[in-house]
């Protein structure tokens, strides 16, 4: 199989280091490259002489709401109004190093050191105030950016006054104790998005909105299929268009102009012939291909003995579940503006990992990382797809070639073509219940999809869970298409398979699917979300199929436990599934912004309708069939079911991941609801009308 890296390798651009390496190895390496967060609090925040608090994070805002929630945590800890915090995100010159924004980790892992930094800063302010006011530090309180004498609140000094003329650096030692999570007035309080105004007025800047004097927009000649090789290209006509510059270096052929549409039109004048790619699999035989092309399986979880479990089972059921490739399809296609000069480069990019991009750009340019600055404006959706920065690499190369700032903003067709898809996945599962209707046996194998959330939340004495390959690590090389992390990577398909199989076993045991789950749940948090979802759903549960189209699912992801229930209507003539209602309950530990958390839960449920019912990438010998929204169908307004969510409060646990768990429920809960409606089990995602009709036939 020939991939994009080969396409770039033979370009002869001299970009040797990065592109002659296996890009997927590179990805694996950076995925597992953890470093500690810096402990210098100036790297996190700066209290200005005007009392405003500049707050620095290597995280980026792509819709998930950290532009609001992280400042809430900071404002709470520092005792300043939220409106006085100026967040600065994803600027590698200004912000502390960060691995990237993915995995529902921002609040979980960045939150605690940031809070500690704020606590340290407050201790410094109190020391300064004690000296200034002649009051012992332990008698001082803080509120709204003011330090005051608890015994006489009129004796006070503002943070601004304390900061004036000072340059104090403090290293976080972790010795300063933090406020206990009680009496919070900013954190934990439902708060409007702080980026809302900029976004509704068109003022919010995304990477393609950044403009520099003398910049050029590039459109790049693309192959018809992955693995095609450029035989010949004639750029004469394109080059004759007024104001157009052509960059040509091996396979990299780009047309540049001040206006992107003029560049696009000129690119259309380039005539090119391509050698077709080598033979390879396509959608029609992908699962056979993947079954015959297996990486080594690893054990995720194991207890008891499978043979004992099988022996103890009165009834065993074996199932195979499948999921197809699917796209990230953020509304904002990848975009970057690079300005390369003798000193290095400045890059504005839509990226989930600006520090990774900094290293990649430095490798391309052969310069120290410090000579590259990556600035991340607002990102128009990522969902995992913007951990790949190819568009910025192209902008860097072209800017170096033409000696001017160059924008590379992908078309929708390029976005689909170069996406790192959610991997096609096969799950084989065999499970058994004993004479008492208890799950005693569970043999679960995920092939090619990833191990996240593959360990069920149920207690099963004899079980083994294995995972072979996936979207990261050693897995991607086994896929014929480029694959990557798609929101809740692995977990969407694992929950679909696990929860479908659990429903099958509940039916075998003659139990309703809710009480079967409650009885088998490993811990009280799972029972808590199941009960909370059931309260909200308000329906009585019966052993399935009941004909009513009700489904339930639960699971765990990113430290959060989640349960969902749904009601569907299935048109037996067309196979179309209409989702009428979805409810979801989450225990995500401490919640910083309940409003933001609900938005993430609801958004995940609505987005999840797509992968559950419609979204699928077809391909044939390196050609991607779905290249725009006419063929790749996203959820739209008319799909909208009634959506209700509830948060199970659990502040003692600390913040857990909130951006992904709900989306991982949707395939599972709809599969179970469809089965409850029509008595047929769906074994493949997405559950399109064709597949529903096939199940009914």
């Amino acid at each position: 199989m020939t991939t994009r890296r080969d396409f770039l390798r033979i370009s002869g651009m001299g970009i040797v280091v990065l592109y002659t390496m296996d890009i997927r190895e590179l990805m694996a390496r950076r995925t597992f490259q953890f470093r500690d967060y810096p402990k210098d609090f100036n790297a996190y925040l700066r209290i200005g002489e005007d009392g405003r608090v500049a707050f620095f994070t290597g995280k980026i805002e792509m819709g998930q709401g950290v532009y609001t929630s992280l400042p809430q945590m900071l404002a709470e800890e520092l005792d300043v109004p939220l409106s006085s915090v100026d967040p600065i995100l994803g600027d590698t010159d200004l912000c502390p190093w960060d691995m990237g924004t993915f995995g529902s980790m921002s609040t979980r892992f960045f939150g605690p050191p940031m809070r500690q930094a704020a606590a340290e800063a407050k201790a410094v302010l109190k020391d300064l105030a004690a000296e200034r006011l002649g009051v012992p530090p332990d008698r001082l309180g803080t509120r709204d950016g003011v330090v005051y004498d608890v015994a006489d609140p009129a004796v006070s000094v503002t943070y601004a006054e304390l900061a004036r003329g000072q340059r104090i650096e403090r290293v976080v030692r972790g010795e300063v104790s933090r406020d206990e999570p009680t009496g919070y007035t900013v954190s934990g309080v439902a708060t409007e998005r702080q980026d809302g105004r900029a976004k509704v007025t068109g003022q919010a800047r995304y990477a393609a909105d950044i403009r520099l004097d003398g910049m050029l927009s590039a459109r790049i000649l693309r192959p018809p299929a992955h693995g095609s090789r450029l035989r010949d290209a004639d750029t004469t006509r394109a080059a004759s268009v007024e104001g157009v510059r052509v960059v040509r270096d091996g396979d990299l052929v780009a047309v540049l102009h001040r206006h992107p549409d003029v560049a696009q039109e000129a690119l259309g004048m380039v005539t090119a012939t391509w050698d077709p790619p080598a033979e390879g699999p396509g959608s029609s035989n992908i699962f056979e291909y993947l079954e015959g092309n297996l990486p080594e399986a690893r054990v995720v979880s194991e207890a008891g003995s499978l043979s004992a479990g099988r022996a103890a089972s009165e009834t065993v059921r074996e199932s195979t579940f499948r999921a197809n490739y699917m796209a990230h399809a953020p509304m904002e296609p990848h975009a970057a503006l690079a300005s390369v000069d003798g000193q290095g480069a400045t890059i504005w990019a839509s990226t989930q990992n600006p520090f990774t991009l900094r290293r990649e750009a430095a490798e391309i340019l052969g310069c120290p990382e410090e000579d590259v600055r990556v600035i991340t404006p607002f990102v128009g959706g990522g969902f995992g797809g913007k951990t790949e920065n190819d568009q910025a690499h192209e902008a860097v190369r072209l800017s170096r070639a033409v000696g001017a700032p160059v924008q590379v903003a992908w078309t929708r067709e390029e976005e689909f073509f170069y996406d790192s898809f959610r991997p096609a996945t096969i799950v084989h599962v065999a499970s058994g219940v004993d004479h008492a209707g208890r799950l005693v046996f569970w043999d679960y194998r995920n092939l090619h999809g990833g191990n996240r959330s593959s360990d069920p939340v149920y207690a099963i004495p004899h079980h083994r869970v294995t995972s072979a390959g996936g979207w990261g690590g050693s897995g991607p090389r086994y896929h014929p298409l480029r694959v990557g992390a798609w929101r809740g990577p692995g977990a969407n398909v694992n929950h679909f398979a696990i929860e479908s199989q659990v429903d099958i076993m509940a039916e075998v045991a003659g139990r309703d699917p809710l009480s079967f789950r409650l009885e088998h749940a490993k811990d009280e948090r799972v029972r808590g979300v199941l009960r909370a979802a059931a309260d909200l759903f308000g329906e009585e549960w019966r052993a399935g199929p009941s004909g009513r189209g009700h489904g339930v699912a639960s699971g765990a992801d990113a430290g959060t436990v989640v349960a969902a229930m749904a009601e569907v209507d299935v048109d037996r003539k067309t196979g179309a599934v209409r989702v009428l209602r979805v409810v979801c309950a989450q225990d995500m530990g401490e919640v910083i912004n309940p409003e933001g958390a609900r938005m993430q839960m609801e958004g995940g449920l609505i987005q999840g309708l797509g992968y559950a019912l419609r979204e699928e990438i077809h391909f044939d010998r390196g050609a991607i069939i779905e290249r725009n929204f006419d063929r790749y169908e996203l959820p739209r307004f008319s799909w909208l079911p009634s959506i209700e969510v509830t948060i199970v409060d659990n502040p003692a646990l600390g913040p857990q991941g909130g951006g992904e768990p709900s989306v991982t429920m949707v395939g599972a809960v709809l599969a179970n609801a469809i089965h409850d409606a029509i008595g047929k089990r769906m074994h493949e995602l997405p559950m399109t009308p064709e597949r529903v009709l096939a199940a009914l036939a």
Partner: protein
Amino acid sequence: MRRAIRFTVNGRPVEVDAEPGRLLLWVLRSDLGLTGTKYGCGERECGACTVLVDGRPVFSCRQRVGSVEGREVMTAEGVASPDGTLHPVQEALVEHGGLQCGFCTPGMVMRAVGFLRRNPDPTREDIARGMETNLCRCGTYNRIVDAVEQAARQLRAQEDRP
């Protein structure tokens, strides 16, 4: 042939020296620097590029600039009052959290403003139908419907005022 094309954008007269066949989206973004209007698909499939021409929503990604000669174009940058007061649609979207990544938002704002001009008293189903052309990948449809419903109420209340 390139020539001077005059129209108004957000109430301000503009003149661009352009081929009349060029697409309005790129003239707005590149020639005029109004980057609030977004490219999402280039095929009228996502609505991120929605602007108003003489008060009606159009997909600027397929609208030729020659066709708006002498007409009024409004973009997301021009919806709020000059004093910064948000339009009821904008205000309601912020209040209801009808946006996440925000990339589809300018198009949603324009679609909703155009829709409410012709449908001042819509049901929720009307709103969903009227907004159907616009895609949001973050899944904020429920909150956008809530917001447009509230904006409709507010606009009607303003109309009723003497």
